[in-house]
């Protein structure tokens, strides 16, 4: 027979004013199985908690119900108190008679009746509670960082410096990310590569960091503290162990006009290449699609396939037969730092997005995007830092920048602000003026969002010192008139239509997540928003965590971010993980599901609905070892306790601890006294 103690809290006047707490205690005391029922001014206070502990000891309580505030407020408090009195904490539950009762009703009788009901439900539930043990999970003190841009680099270094082993996976041949493409950075105009490349080298040399460039995450299994990650190392066709980075192969390569990804197709590279001179690791990659050797092979040419790089390599590092390899690593936490890609205005768009026909769908050669401008402005770029138009190499004397191209444009499918464009456009106008002294920059904008430290001053400087002409309005249309680009807009401040003749136009196109991010998110069981950005666990309080325990976010994979934000997130994620790694074991609430193998029919609906992949299939065999059936089993380390499996299971053969069918059934059945 149950012996439940009921403790009704007045919360000072908060509950007592509208709920007759004494009557609640009295009514509850009449219930079978209730051994003790009292009310008290402040249950959460030390004397209040002492009352509970004392009753547990004296009345030999088998369960405790505290009728007070929301469990979100004090469930932990009271469970701890019960625990310290020797009662399993999970035999204690709260009835919410404050937020859900006294604070929202005025009629004292009605509120008291309701408080009695609410407490009665919980009494009936607690009668069917069973002691649960906190789940303890060992922690592998290694972290995986996905993405080797500035966010990933920062996270990896912070983690490594903190003593954790790190595996840094980067899908490109070199780490560095978009930041390595930038010329200068706002608002200080310091050289991007100057601050970045030392960090890249540091990553390469750090004893705690294992760098896996030109690699991708193939599969993720396991759970916080115990992830199993399968990583695909793409074939470079260059043996990294033998290559000394001398560059002879690139010099020998006969294919020299491949549009360079690093230079945003404004420059050229060879088929065997390193993306840029400061690349880390400095090991070339053969681009199979452009390589003469592989093309010839594909056509079936047996002899006379190119092979120039192989001939040139004194170390014999070229290996045309190399294949993708897979390695599996065990890690305890994962940082996602996959960064962003730019929206393009072209006709072909992913689902849900539309291109800009009114801007010529990207067919006007001297209309470029922000990253292309960065490459033009960069000393390491294809023009050695000279601003020259792609079509004819002439210096543009009239340049127009358009902000919010794609961003804040629901009609094209993106309603969000890309956050960094206001700043980099201002930077671009400055860089432009510094390089083309007699040039005129015009910026079409809608709002200026420059809300970081020194940001607004920076934009003002562009306007006040560097002569950028800002026009508030969106451009309706662009078309070519000979060598001139006509930019047809509207100055909403002067109220006049304007057509500006430009030699070059730079579009601040929207920031979008990396393609394929949905697949990665699914591998990680992490959620993402309608645009494909990762969702943080809480927008304010848990900005670098995901809903999947042990998976953290850094940088623009979560939303458009600038460098300081990305770095801050990376350090925050690293700090979170170091905190996690500071314990030998993790503690988890035991609110997890459990399958009754005898009753499971193995339809695996649970497996399909589980958001965490916590369901595995196990074989049931009879004594002779014959296979009887295959049934579901819950991995308690992965299960987060949503209970969707239980509601979905047709035969109710899986039970969520803490919210079992018996418990809910009892609550419902307590509906009427």
């Amino acid at each position, binding site marked *: 027979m149950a012996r439940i103690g009921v403790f009704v809290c007045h919360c000072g006047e908060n509950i007592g004013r509208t709920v007759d707490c004494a009557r609640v205690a009295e009514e509850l005391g*009449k*219930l*079978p199985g209730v051994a003790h029922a009292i009310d008290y001014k402040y249950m959460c206070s030390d004397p209040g908690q002492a009352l509970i502990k004392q009753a547990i000891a004296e009345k030999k309580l088998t369960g405790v119900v505290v009728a007070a505030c929301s469990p979100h407020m004090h469930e932990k408090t009271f469970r701890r108190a019960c625990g310290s009195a020797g009662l399993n904490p999970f035999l204690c539950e709260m009835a919410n008679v404050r937020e859900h009762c006294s604070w929202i009703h005025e009629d004292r009788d009605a509120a008291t009746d309701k408080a009695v009901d609410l407490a009665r439900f919980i009494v009936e539930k607690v009668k069917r509670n069973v002691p649960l043990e906190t789940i303890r999970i060992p922690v592998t003190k290694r972290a995986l960082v996905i993405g080797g841009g500035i966010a990933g680099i920062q996270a990896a270094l912070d983690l490594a410096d903190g003593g954790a082993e790190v595996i840094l996976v980067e899908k490109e041949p070199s780490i560095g990310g978009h930041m390595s493409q930038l010329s200068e950075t706002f608002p200080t105009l310091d050289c991007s590569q100057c601050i970045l490349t030392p960090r890249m080298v540091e990553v390469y040399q750090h004893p705690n960091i294992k760098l896996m460039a030109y690699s991708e995450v193939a599969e993720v299994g396991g759970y916080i503290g115990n992830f199993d990650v399968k990583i695909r190392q793409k074939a470079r066709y260059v043996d990294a162990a033998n290559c000394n980075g001398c560059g002879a192969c690139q010099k020998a390569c006969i294919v020299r006009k491949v549009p360079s990804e690093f230079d945003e197709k404004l420059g050229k590279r060879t088929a065997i290449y390193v993306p840029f001179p400061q690349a880390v690791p400095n090991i070339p990659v053969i681009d199979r699609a452009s390589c003469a050797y592989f093309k010839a092979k594909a056509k079936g040419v047996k002899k006379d396939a190119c092979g120039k790089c192989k001939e040139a390599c004194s170390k014999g590092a070229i290996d045309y037969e190399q294949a993708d390899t897979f390695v599996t690593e065990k890690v305890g936490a994962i940082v996602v730092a996959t960064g962003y890609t730019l929206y393009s205005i072209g006709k072909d768009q992913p689902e849900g997005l539309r291109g800009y026909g009114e801007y010529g769908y990207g067919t006007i050669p001297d209309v470029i995007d922000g990253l292309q401008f960065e490459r033009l402005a960069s000393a390491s770029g294809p023009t050695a830092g000279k601003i020259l138009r792609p079509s004819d190499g002439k210096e543009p004397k009239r340049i127009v920048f358009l902000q919010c191209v794609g961003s804040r444009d629901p009609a094209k499918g993106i309603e969000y602000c890309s956050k960094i464009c206001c700043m980099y456009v201002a930077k671009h106008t400055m860089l432009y003026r510094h390089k083309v002294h007699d040039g005129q920059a015009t910026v079409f904008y809608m709002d200026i969002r420059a809300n970081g430290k020194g940001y607004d001053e920076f934009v003002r400087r562009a306007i006040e010192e560097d002569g950028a002409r800002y026009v508030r309005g969106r451009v309706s249309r662009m078309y070519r008139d000979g060598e001139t680009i006509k930019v047809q807009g509207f100055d909403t401040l002067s109220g006049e239509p304007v057509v500006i003749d430009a030699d070059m136009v730079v579009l601040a196109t929207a920031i979008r997540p990396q393609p394929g991010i949905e697949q990665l998110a699914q591998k990680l069981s992490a959620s993402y928003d309608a645009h494909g950005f990762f969702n943080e666990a809480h927008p304010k309080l848990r900005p670098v965590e995901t809903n999947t325990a042990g998976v953290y976010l850094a940088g623009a994979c979560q939303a458009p971010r600038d460098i300081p934000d990305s770095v801050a997130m990376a350090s925050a994620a690293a700090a979170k993980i170091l905190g996690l790694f500071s314990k030998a074991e993790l503690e988890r609430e035991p609110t997890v599901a459990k399958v009754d193998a005898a009753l499971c029919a193995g339809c695996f609906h649970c497996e399909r609905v589980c958001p965490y992949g916590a369901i595995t299939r196990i074989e049931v065999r009879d004594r002779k070892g014959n296979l009887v059936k295959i049934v579901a089993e819950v991995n308690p380390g992965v299960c987060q306790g949503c209970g969707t499996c239980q509601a979905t299971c047709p035969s109710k053969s899986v039970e969520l601890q803490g919210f079992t069918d018996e418990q809910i059934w009892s609550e419902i*059945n*307590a509906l009427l*006294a």
Partner: protein
Amino acid sequence: MRAKTITEEELCTFVADLVAAGTRVTAPVRAAEGKVDYRAITRFEEAAIGAELPRRSLKEFFLPPTEPLFSWRQGKGDVTVKPVSVSFPPHVVLGARPCDAAAVEILDRVMGWDYRDELWFGRREATTIVSVACPGIDGSCFCTATGRGPDSTRGSDLMMTPVDGGYFVEAVTPKGEAFVRTHAARFADVADPGTTVAAEAFRARARSRVAENLTLSLPALRSWLGSSFDHELWRTIALRCHGCGACASVCPTCHCFDIVDEPDGVRAGTRRRNWDTCQTARFTVHASGHNPRTDQNARFRQRVMHKFSIYPDRFGEVLCTGCGRCARACPGGMDLPEVLKTIAALAGADGPREAAV
């Protein structure tokens, strides 16, 4: 008591008067789907006497599919129990099939054997069963093979045989005789001896028609069953059986029930008795999860054994009236008369017709 007759017209007023006087009258009635059910009537015109065999038998009027046995309520440290009433208003079943009527009497044995089931007998005593001789339904009828017949009077208080314009009526039990006496004005004496002859002819025709379907030696059957528990017949007999129990639901003699406690909230509840059947897998599941009847073959064997061996061993007669409902209702095509024929062949029991046990 001498045989009587009653006309259709008289039955109309008779039923109306009985209902008006507070007697519940049940008769076969054509339901919306064209099927016939035993149901309460208020006018004789509603009845479909002599039409198709009703979907279910008479047993539910004595052992309902569900009935409360008592209700309880838990207080602080005590429990109060509220019993159910075992007295019932007068009830007349008009137009019962002889196979259904016989089943009720057969079940009296088991219901009153070591413990008298007050609810069963309360209803039995309140009820007068007026049967109508059956012309036979179809090829699944085998009442004659079970030792009864389409004109069997077992279980009937009164037996009526259709004749021109009305019925030839014989009282079978004292209760039946009393019924005729109480309502003497409703019945007429047999005026024309031809009526008696016609009634007997009707019955003889029916008997021979049904007998063509199946003949059995029940003792031989019983003795074969008694010694053939492990016969290989039982290994494949019920492959097509779904274990759905439709046979038991419609069977006039299957009487297994389950006792359940149905909560009414967390502190009160009702104990009920619900129909159950040995044909479902969970019928014999032990608390441990072990199930001695491992498969459907074993469950079907149980059904045959119980009806033709175990019950006769204890109560001296087979627990089957040959109505054929089980064969008609089976979605899987299981056919009891066919099975009996098979067993009879194995037992050498397909010999001459047996007299009633």
